[in-house]
């Protein structure tokens, strides 16, 4: 099992060494490494923004690394494009499937091959045979639009096998699947590995990793923090810790709120289904008191986003209710919820909170423009003045107020967004990943604002993947796993390991 023996007997199927890739304003990979042995299922773990997808895109020929080498079976590769990678046997199954809905399964699988349209029947037979060999239940003559998400994924995998992929990259393959389909996928993946192929399984769901994979590599901040850990010997709590990071110096250790007021946010038995009908929030109840900060911890994709969107009115609620300061707002539109005293700092700052193509002034008046009108026209002077006040109060560094929003740095985007949301003196703030991706000063500034708000009596629901932040700021800490709140901790009397175990779904006795 040690790397020395494997390299002498058999070169690694994939070896990525010291990969660097930068994008404007972001270093996505900062010397990342990955070694995948032939015939194994290898998990690549990491939070959103850890650099997993970028690293896989480097391997699949989508990006060229600025530094570092890609080796397949010991040979250095220099892929110019995805086609070159596919030619070398590396195929990526993206989260968004790349299938033509009006083509049949067989046509999609054989797409891009030399034209053999007349041989339709024989292609269908060949595709059917291949599917059977790997236990992929499918009907080659069916058109793709008729298929479920799980079936479509099997078509993508068939496409890879059709091109005789030796290395298959599955990018968060279970994100779109029902639990049964996910189990089925695990079986398929095992069959492919038994056939000598290597499967790279990108995920941030720890239970899948322990169930489906042989080894795991963990990325954080673009670097490899743990390479090729054997999954058998893994403790899920330890994995969670590796993903979210070691304890760093706590920026603020907040004085806990001694007097918590009446509940200002009361979420009762809330359930949400996503567009595929999968339950993503299950029967969640929580309360936030005036002046209280309630933290929600959890590995990404365990229902935090639909929960916060449902509270803000951007996600249809299946069941349950949301009560804000005594008023039931379950069926209200987002704007009515704002008027009732809700402020929302969404996870997607650009796209949900802010419109990227619009300028700073236009974004700053998103909630208030109706009151800044002069007849049908927006009073530009008033809009500018309110924007200037915001920029001043929250020290947003911006060159030009007429510059497109997308040009601002993450920290400045967030200052403007938070400032705009707080302008109406809300009673409840829902802040989702408010400091993710910000630099040290940005993090401190946003955290300070949140603490300041709680002191003045605002109830805050803080959803974060940064355990240190949650432990430092929260009065109470809830943990979400698979759409449910599975544990509650007192931040003063718990440890990262305990919280990490709960995040991984291993709920011990909490109080």
């Amino acid at each position: 099992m040690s790397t020395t023996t494997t390299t002498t007997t058999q070169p690694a199927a994939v070896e990525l060494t010291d990969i660097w890739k930068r994008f404007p304003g972001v270093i996505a990979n900062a010397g990342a490494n990955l070694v995948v042995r032939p015939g194994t299922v290898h998990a690549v773990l990491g939070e959103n923004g850890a650099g997993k997808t970028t690293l896989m895109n480097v391997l699949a020929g989508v990006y060229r690394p600025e530094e570092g080498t890609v080796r397949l079976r010991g040979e250095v590769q220099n892929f110019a494009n995805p086609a070159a990678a596919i030619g070398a046997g590396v195929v990526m199954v993206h989260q968004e499937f790349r299938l033509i809905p009006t083509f049949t399964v067989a046509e999609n699988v054989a797409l891009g091959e030399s034209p053999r349209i007349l041989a339709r029947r024989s292609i269908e037979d060949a595709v059917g045979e291949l599917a059977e060999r790997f236990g992929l239940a499918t009907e080659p003559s069916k058109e793709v639009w008729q298929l479920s998400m799980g079936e479509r994924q099997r078509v993508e995998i068939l496409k890879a096998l059709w091109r005789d992929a030796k290395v298959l990259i599955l990018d968060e393959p279970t994100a779109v699947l029902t639990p049964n389909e996910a189990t089925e996928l695990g079986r398929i993946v095992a069959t492919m590995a038994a056939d000598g192929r290597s499967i790279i399984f990108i995920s941030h769901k720890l239970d899948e990793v322990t169930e489906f994979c042989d080894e795991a590599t963990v990325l954080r901040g673009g670097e490899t923090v743990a390479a090729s850990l054997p999954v058998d010997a893994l403790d899920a709590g330890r994995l969670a810790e590796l993903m979210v990071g070691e304890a760093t110096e706590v920026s603020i250790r907040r004085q806990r709120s001694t007097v918590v007021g009446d509940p200002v946010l009361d979420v009762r038995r809330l359930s949400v289904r996503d567009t595929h009908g999968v339950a993503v929030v299950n029967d969640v109840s929580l309360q936030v008191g005036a002046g209280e900060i309630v933290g929600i911890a959890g590995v990404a994709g365990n229902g935090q986003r639909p929960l916060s969107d449902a509270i803000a009115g951007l996600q249809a609620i299946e069941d349950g209710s949301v009560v804000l300061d005594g008023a039931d707002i379950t069926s209200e539109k987002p704007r009515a919820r704002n008027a009732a005293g809700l402020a929302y700092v969404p996870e997607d700052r650009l796209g949900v909170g802010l419109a990227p193509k619009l300028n700073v002034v236009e974004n700053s008046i998103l909630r208030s423009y109706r009151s800044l009108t002069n007849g049908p026209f927006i009073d530009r002077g008033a809009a500018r003045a309110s924007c200037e006040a915001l920029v001043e109060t929250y020290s947003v560094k911006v060159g030009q107020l007429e510059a497109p929003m997308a040009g601002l740095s993450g920290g400045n985007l967030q200052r403007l967004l938070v400032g705009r949301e707080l302008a109406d003196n809300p009673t409840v703030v829902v802040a989702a990943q408010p400091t993710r991706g910000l630099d040290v000063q940005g993090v401190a500034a946003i955290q300070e604002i949140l603490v300041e708000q709680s002191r003045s009596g605002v109830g805050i629901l803080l959803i974060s993947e940064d355990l240190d932040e949650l432990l430092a700021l929260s009065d109470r800490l809830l943990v979400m796993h698979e759409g449910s709140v599975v544990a509650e901790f007192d931040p003063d009397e718990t440890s990262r390991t305990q919280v990490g175990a709960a995040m991984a779904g291993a709920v011990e006795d909490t109080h």
Partner: protein
Amino acid sequence: MAAPFAFEKRDKPLRGGQIRAFVVGVVVALLLGSILLLIAGHDPITIYTKMFDSAFGSRRGISTTLTRAVPLGLAGLAVAVAGSMGLWNIGAEGQIIAGAIAGAWVARLGGDLPGPALITLMLLGAVVGGGLLALGPAIARASLGVNEIITTLMLNEVAIRVVRYLVNGPWKDPDGNNFPIAPELPDQSALPALFERSNIGLLIAAAVLLGFGVYTARSAWGYELRIAGSSEKAATYAGISLKAKVFTVLVLSGAIAGLAGGIELTGSSDRLVEGVANGWGYAGIIVAALALMRPSGVAAVAVAFGAVQVGGLSIQTLGVPAAIASILQALILFGALSAAVFTNYRLVRRSSGVTTATVATS
């Protein structure tokens, strides 16, 4: 081997980049065109001077250019209004026809009315006609999410078939020597002349373009349009009803194109003919794209586009084959369009291997 150059996204768009890019694009296109002209045995300087002269060198030239800019501008505005919120109205061609049909119908019913009243009613009819043709796509898109590109495009064919049926059948001019044309419109329905070839239609179009340019740039309505075009979720969060917006914008877009049909009918033509839309609707898509889907930029682009067309036609009198004239026009438009890429991207040179990229253009 990889291409030696690659596009890299700029951190922020180049400031004032659009105008710079257009100028550079047009210059490059003219240089490429010179090669073509030299090969064909023509002096590029003479040809380009002639093109410019015919479009802007005389009152008559300016009038011809502006007359072309009227339908181009209105069709461009129709596409740009929809484009501001990320919708594609590919059906301006059909909506122009629908507008012309409706205008002609009004003239058939109220041919005895005095000029100002008749013209007003015809233009209103044209607006309604264009809007009606867009109504189906608008409802389908707003309520069911049906792709408006497909529906608006297909309705172009329907509009063409309908006008063909009318001028070959029930509306065919009995005194038209069996040509597929409708009878002449009443004399008083012609738009009053302004100067040279230009008529009042120019003022109407200018007013509509200016009005919409200002309204979409300054009003709360235009603001909501741009939010919806930039991010649907942000728009929902701001309390903007996307369905209502999609519906009104598509119908409005059709109505503006319909107005172009009405002005063509009452201004440039004396009767309804099959070719009333003359490709203006499709050219409008290019105009809107060059204006970056901003209604406020459409007027200037429409005049420039009109000038390129007038110039392209004029050089055929110097013996330049029509094909080369068309290629020249296409080169100029293509140059201006493709140069816009550089406002958001820059070209970087890839040195061999995996060393860092160097900036080739600022």
